[in-house]
Structure formats: structure tokens, C-alpha cells
């Protein structure tokens, strides 16, 4: 699985990358530090999954999700957020995001979330 990490904090990016790299068959194919970069790299790399931080500077979360889905419909989008996720989730799902992880619980929830996504998509593929 090829994963694009979009987060404005390089330490967060690096942490996630190390996390992801430990899993067999997972690969970080690119990093982006703002919305524009995330959109550009997605349309270039067509990753299987984008881990998208919606609190990056200059970002309009809904608009970014909408454009990503438009450019690369196959790509799944997992939202990573500093805010309490329950107030934003319905709108983001509506725009095409597949799920959401609270940064406060990132260390615990990230891997299970990605694995869950992978399972649903492989189920669907079958």
C-alpha cells in the first residue's frame, strides 16, 4: 500500500513515516507540508491512501478533500486532526473522506484505522 503523508509539522510527518514503514507491505510514497502540495503530489503519485491533516495553514479541509477525490477517485483519504473529530466527521465523510483519527490518540489509533480501511477496500475488491 502506498501512502502519502500531508502534515505541516515535519516531526509529525517523520513520526508517522516511521510508524508506517514498520508495517510490511506499506510504503510512504511522498510527503506534503501544505494543501497545495498534497493536491499536486496526489495527482502525480495516485497513492492508495492520503493521511491528511486538516489543520494545515491555508487549508480549507472540505475543499481539499473534494479536489483530492476529484483528481484521484481511487485514493482513500484518512483525516488526521488536532480538533475533536466528532464535529467535523459528518461533513468530511460527505465529501469523500473514509475516516478520521484524533491526533491526541494518533499513536494508538492510526495503525488500527489504516488496517480497518485496508480490510474494507480488499473486501470490496473481492
Amino acid at each position, binding site marked *: 500500500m502506498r501512502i502519502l503523508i500531508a502534515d505541516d509539522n515535519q516531526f509529525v510527518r517523520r513520526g508517522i513515516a516511521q510508524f508506517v514503514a514498520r508495517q510490511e507491505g506499506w510504503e510512504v510514497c511522498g510527503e506534503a507540508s501544505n494543501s497545495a502540495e498534497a493536491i499536486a503530489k496526489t495527482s502525480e503519485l495516485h497513492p492508495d491512501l492520503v493521511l491528511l491533516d486538516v489543520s494545515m495553514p491555508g487549508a*480549507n479541509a472540505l475543499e481539499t478533500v473534494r479536489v483530492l477525490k476529484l483528481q484521484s477517485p481511487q485514493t482513500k483519504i484518512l483525516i488526521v486532526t*488536532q*480538533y475533536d473529530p466528532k464535529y467535523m466527521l459528518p461533513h468530511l465523510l460527505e465529501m469523500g473522506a473514509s475516516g478520521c483519527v484524533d491526533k491526541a490518540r494518533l499513536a494508538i489509533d492510526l495503525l488500527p484505522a489504516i488496517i480497518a480501511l485496508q480490510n474494507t477496500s480488499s473486501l470490496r475488491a473481492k
Partner: protein
Amino acid sequence: MGNDEKEIRELRRLLRDLVALATTPAVWVGRDRAQVAESVADVLLHTLRADAVYVCLRAPKKTEAVRSPQHPGFSDEVRRLWPESATSSLQVETITGSAWPRALRVVMQPIGISGDEGFMVVGCAGCDFPSESEALLLSVAANQAAVALQAGRLRMQAELERHRLQDLLAKAAAAIGLLSGPEHRWLYVNENYIRVTGRNSAADFLGKTLRESLPEIETQPFIELLDGVYHTGKSYVGREMKVKLNRAQSGQPEEGYFDFVYEPLRNADGVVDGIFVHAVEVTDKVIAREEVKKRERQFREMIDTLPAAIYTTDAGGRLTHFNPAAVEFSGRTPELGTDQWCVSWKLFYPDGRPMPHDECPMAVALKEGRIIRGAEAIAERPDGVRRWFTPYPTPIRDHHGRIIGGINMLLDITERKRAEELTGHLAAIVASSDDAIVSKDLNGIIKSWNKSAERIFGYTAEEAIGQHITLIIPWERRNEEEDILRRLRNGERIDHFETVRRSKDGKFIDISLTISPVHDGSGKIIGASKVARDITESKRAQEALRQSQVRLSAEADALVKLNEWSGRLWRSRSLKEGLDEMLGAVIELLDADKGNIQILDREHRKLTLVAQRGFDKEFRDFFREVTATDDSACGRALRTGERIIVEDVESDEPFSPFRHIARQAGFRSVISSPLIAANGTPLGIVSVHFAAVQRRSEQDLHRLDLYIRQAADFIGRCRIEDALRQSEEQFRKLSESLDVEVRARTRELEERNAEVLKQSEQVRELSWRLLLTQDEERRHIARELHDSAGQTLTVLGMNLVQFVHKTGRNAPELVTDAETIQEMVQQLHRDIRTASYLLHPPLLDESGLYSALSWYTQGLVERSGLQVNLDMSQQFGRLARDVELVLFRLVQECLTNIHRHSGSKTASIRIAREPTQITVEVEDQGTGMSPERLAEVQAGASGVGIRGMRERLRQFKGNLKIESDSRGTRIFVTIPVTVADIPANESNPESVQATI
């Protein structure tokens, strides 16, 4: 195994450092930039065991910190590599120095977003530097430094704002001070506070308690009041409170009066920790009012001593004051504030018709606003006694000319009226006599002509008066008239002169004439009175008639004289003129040789000689002053209050000590009559003296008494008129000075009022600015907490997992520790998030009021257990940023109050958007506020939170209303839509659409 242990120790240390760094940004917050740079350098040197460290902070001023004990020139190398325009991302280099033992691996870490706060460089000899954890530590340190710098800037802004606030307080015209703690220790006093308390400088207050700084108020109630404010949290407002201060040069306590406010100050937890004191001195105002009252009292005391009935009323005629003479006059004690227009019981017009009180002269004066003089009326007392009086009503006006009351004096003229009635009666006797009674002057011109004269002589009074008396004298008897006139000029009286007169129809009539001279006041003969009797009647009756004629003639003569004298007396223009007139009349009345008048000096109880006729200097000196103990005729008359007649001084025993004086002065007989006023007060004595022994007829003495009564009445009137003139003059002067005083004080009060209004406007402006600053600061701190600390903690959490993953196999006992730390990190993350959102909910800016309130109420339900029902449309939409914040804070404040104070288990909130306004209703089912408490909150005297809300709402033309009863409290708020709508420059489509 030794290596593993060492590694585990190393890792534990690293973990500890990381947690310490991430969770204690407060270490650097609050330091200045140089301190932050130095601290960062020390921490890096220590934590990373680095060989050299360089920290550079940029704007506004470059600040550097260097630690390179073994690497001279390290900083120069670093500056060469990274001049001020260093890149904004992390870089790793290797550098060497000529005197260094080894080359150094150096890492450049930017501080702040894109390195705009500066950067730091760490050098280590190890070739694997930096490891991941070292890089992580560097990043955390950079983040914390950025937070500290940002916080430092915010603090400086707040500091500046505080200085401006202090400056404004210092310049305020009121005396202002801040007290802290339950012992009331001074934190601040402004110049005016120092001035009004008479102290020298702020050093007399700051750091001291109220008791220490102002020992003289220990015995006054202020410390108790302050304790009350401190413990109840309710502000106290004092009006014109008396304060004794040691501020005079003499060192003696001096009294002053102050309007002041004690306002509790609360700390961030809402707990009272100080008191704000705001005082304005109003001593001048209070003293001025006391002075006005004192003068009013003096004026009333003055009125009370006057002998005439005097009373005052308000503009509506209600009695405000009356003097003892008014009680005596009206025969009753009037009721102040109830009785209207007049002190008397019943009133009548002079013709006897009843006069309603509201038509009395005082009522007319007040209603028509004019002074009334010359009116007369009759007052009836409850005991039936009637009194004639002349009122002197005068309206009193203020300096605008408005009538504010009235003053009236009632002058008793009953005695004068009685005398007038009597003389009128006597004149009627003359008019109705059967005899013709005619008077003429010395030229023979007819002056009066009665009915019988008309009947006997056939001429009417109009025809006769002004004609010469020869009108009725036959031609052949002209000589007779000349003879009569000659004898009259000699003062002779002609009795029963039988002669003939001619009537209008030419008939000759036999008449008997009695002719008497008429004297003027000075005793000069000015004419004659003639009584003519028709003696053509039966001779039998003639003698009897003649007798009665003589008596009648004398009586009529005396009465005519009495009438004339009385008229002259009342026409006198002064007391002096009246006394002379009186003396002349009495001497002539009794045909006396000498006479004198003595007036009683009431204070010394002495008679003083004021008028005399016919005495030499020796006599005048002897009788200059006489007391009631003397046995002279006048002394006895004063003592007994009755007429004293000494018929013969040679035989009168009590008079014996004065015989030689009488002989020297040349009199043998004396009559002394007391002058007694209508109310029984003795006024003086009139004495007449005769050269020969005298025995006077009852009729003479009766006439004397009649005249003396009028004389006493006249003196009484002169005295009252004199007193009235004096009191009117005093009253006029008093009114003028009061008027000037009142005008000056009014102007002063108006000026002070304007000043106070201006100050309260300034304070309002200040508190609004404080609220804004507070909001802005909260927003900044919330954002910093949320973003920087949150991100760091995320990374920390992930690194921990990595750490466990890497070391778990080798050191299973570490896993439990790491999981505990993991939980702590998550808890910390959630706590920081909640704290940040409560400071300023980001949802408010990004998603609007509905999202922010949903989040807040749900959180409150979880934290407090209060059942909150939020009734608000999801499609409520956006408002201006400030208005959304105000409404959010309003709901926050209300819910906090309900939770803390109401005892209610539920709260409901309704927010609706109407065509012209936004409405908010917050309701609870708690115990409600007492009416007193509600009134205090409504008046803004209490309830800091509510007042803050009113202040915020006022800026948006909003309105707040509170209702409270035993069923709960309801708060209604409205804000006009025109104010609440998003202004054009704020309507950023991105932020409107943003979901978060």
C-alpha cells in the same frame, strides 16, 4: 548486559527530559528574550551533552547565546555558515576549527514558523549526531522557545495596556485606590487619593494596610463596610458619608463628606481578592446645604419673636411655619402641611359674607403671583371671638422667578374698627338730633348741616354747606353775627342765646342758639358749632328744653372734637407726629394746663418721657425715667394698669414725695392714664396737669378713656408697622443672599455632575478596552496551547510507540512504564485541548455560534451533570465575529451562574434569528434571586458577570433584561440585526464555508 543497562538508563533519561520539556513551557514563559536564549542554550548543552551550542533570536533585536567551552571560534564558524538569512528548515553540517580536537557535527534548527523567531545550532563530536531522539529533542526545544517568545510578546502588550490604564486612573478627578486581601492592603492609590487624605506620597499607602495608613478611621465604620464587601462580594455605594481625616495643618481630625463606591475585585476563579475604591469629595455641597438650613432656622426664630401673626406656606398654600402670635390671633394651633391658605379658623368678608379659604387674600396672592395690600377681612376663632384684620400676603420666588411659597402677616385692627364704629354712631346721633346742628369756620362759612337744620331752615345740606352763615341771618341782625364771631375768637361759649333766623321760604323763626368754638389740634380756634332750637314751641317745655340743649351741645361739641382728633391722630405720618397730636388733644379735651406722654421701654420696664407741653428742664430731668415702683401718679398708673387721679397734690398722701416738684412746676392736680394695647400689653402713660384743684365729671373721664384707647391702638399699630418694615427689610436681604448662595452652589454642582459623567464615560471606555484585550489575549493563548503543545504531544506519543517497539524485546519491564507515559501524554493532550477551547472555542471562529454552543453545552453536561437544552436552528448561520463571541460568552456566563448559584438541575437556552434582531433567552428552574438582590443586579450595583455582559452588549446596542422569582430566573437578550450582521470586510467566503 552492561551495555543494555546503560542503554536503558540513557533512554529513561531521554524520556524524562522529553516529558519535562514538553510539559513545562512555563519554565521559559515570562523571561525576557536574552534569558530565553541563555536558558535554551543551557538546556541544549545539558540535555544533549553537546560540545557547543549557539542560539540566535531575531526580531526585534538580534540576541545571541553561545556555549562552546572547548571550541573557540565556534560562533564565528556558525555565523559564517548561517548568516542572518539562514534557511527555514533543519540542516546538518560538519565543521572544523583550527584549535579543535575533532571536527563537529552541527545541526541548525529553526525556531518558530519558518524560523522567523531565529534558529539554534548544536554541535556534537559523535559522527551519528543527531540521532532521531536528539533531533526530536531539538525540535521540542525550538517549539517551546517559540511559545515562550510569543507569550513574552503577549505579556508586553498586556503590560503596556496596564500602564495606560494606570495612567488614566492616576489622572482621574476622583480619588481611586485598590486594596487587596482580607486585611485591605494597598496595591494602588492615585494622586487624588493622596491629596484628599492629606498624606504626602504613595509611600504612605503602598504595601500598608488601611489601618496602618489611615489610623484615624479605626473608630469609623469603613473597615466594617470593606470587610462586608470583601466577604459578600457585593459592592457598596455610599452617599455623603461623613469621614474624619487627619489632614488639617493642626493635626486635628477634620470632617469631610464623600460619595464613594467599594467594588469587589475577583480573581480568575471568580473569588473576591481585593476591593476597588472610588471616592469623590462632596464636603462643600453638604456644608452649603447645612448653611441654607441654618439661615432658614434663623429666619423662623426671628419671625417667632414678632408681635404680629405671621405664617409661611409652600407654593400650594400649605402651611410650613407660623409664629406664636399667629396662634394667639387665630385662637387655635394650625396643622402644618394640612391647613391651607390661612391660619385662621373661619373667614368673612367685611360685609359679613363667609369667605372660603381659597379666596382669601393669601390665596389670591399665591395664585396670581402678586403682593396684596390694603385688603381687610374678619377672622372668627373657635371660641367665637371675631377679629378684624389687614393681611399683608407676599409671594416668595426663587431666582427663576417661580413662586416657591408665600409669607403673610395678619394685623389686628379690631380696636380701630370699633372706634370708627363708635364715631360713626355718634355722628348718626348728631345727624338724627331734633335740634339743628351746624358748624362754621371763623369766616362764617358753613361746614356742616344736619337733617334738623334742613327741616328747620328749609335749605338742604348741599345748598347750605359752603355758604356764609348770613344765609339764614335776617338783614337787621347782621351785627349780632359779628359780635358772636368776636366772642368766639376770644374762646367764649355762647349759651341759650335767643334770637330770630330766617328760613328759605322767608319765614322768621324764633330760636335758641348755643354756640361753641371749635379748636384744631394745636388748640387754635378754627370755627364754631351752633345748636339751634326752635323755641316757637310751648313755653312750658322751654326751660326743660334749654337744659337738655346745654347738655347736648356740650356732648356734641366734645364728640365732634373727639371725632376730629381721632381722624387727625390716624392721619399722622409718624409716631412722633401722632404723640404730639395726642398730647394736644388730651390737654384740650380736659382743658388742662400741661401734659406729657411716657412710653414704656419693655426691656427695662421703665417709662421714658417722649412728649411734653408746658414743663421746664428741671421737671423733665426729674421725670426722665420712672419705674412701676414709684408713687408718682404715672408710676402708680403703670403699676395698677388703671387711671390715677390726683385731685389735689397738697392733700394726696402717696403723692407727698413729689409735692415740691409739683409746686415748682406749678400744678395742683394731675390725671395719669395708662396706654394699654388690645392684647393687654402696657405701652405707656399719658398724664395731664392742672394749675387748680380739679374734679372731673364721669363724662369727661369717659371721653378721655375713649380717646386714650384709640391712642394706645395707634401706638400699637405704629410699633407693628415698624417691626413689619424691619422684618420685611431683613427678609428681603436674607432672600437676596440666599438666592446668590443657591445659584452659586447650583452652578458648582452642575459642573461637578458633568465631571462625574465624563469620568464614568472614561471608565466605561476603559472597561470595554480591557474586555477586548482580554478576548484577544485568550484567543492567542488558546491557539498557541492548542497548536504547538498539541502537535508536540502527538509526536511524543508516536515516538513512545516507536520506542516500545524498538526496546520492548530487550527490556519488557520498560513497556509498562512507556504505556503509563503514553496514557499521561494522551490525558495531557485532552486537558490542553479542553483548556484551550474554554479559553476560546476555535469552533466559534470557524464554524459559528451553533457549533461552538453545541460543543460547549455538551461538555458542560459531561463535566457538571446540569441538564442543558439548547434550542437553536442548525441553519442559524454566521454573525459578526465580535457578536458571536459576545453571545457565546453570554451563554457561558449564564450557565456558569446557573450551575454555581441557582441550585437548578436544568437550564434551557433559546436563540433565534428574527427579521430585525437576534433574541436569546436563558431560563432555569432554580431558587431565583431575592427582590433585593434582583434590584441590585438590575441597577448594576452587583453581579460582576452580568455587568460585564451589559457592557459588551451596550457596544452592540443590545439589551439585557432579567426576571427572577421563586420558580427560577429568566434572562432575555436582544441585539439588532443591523449591528450583528457580518460586516463586508469580514465576509471571507473561505471562513464562512469552513467546516472546522
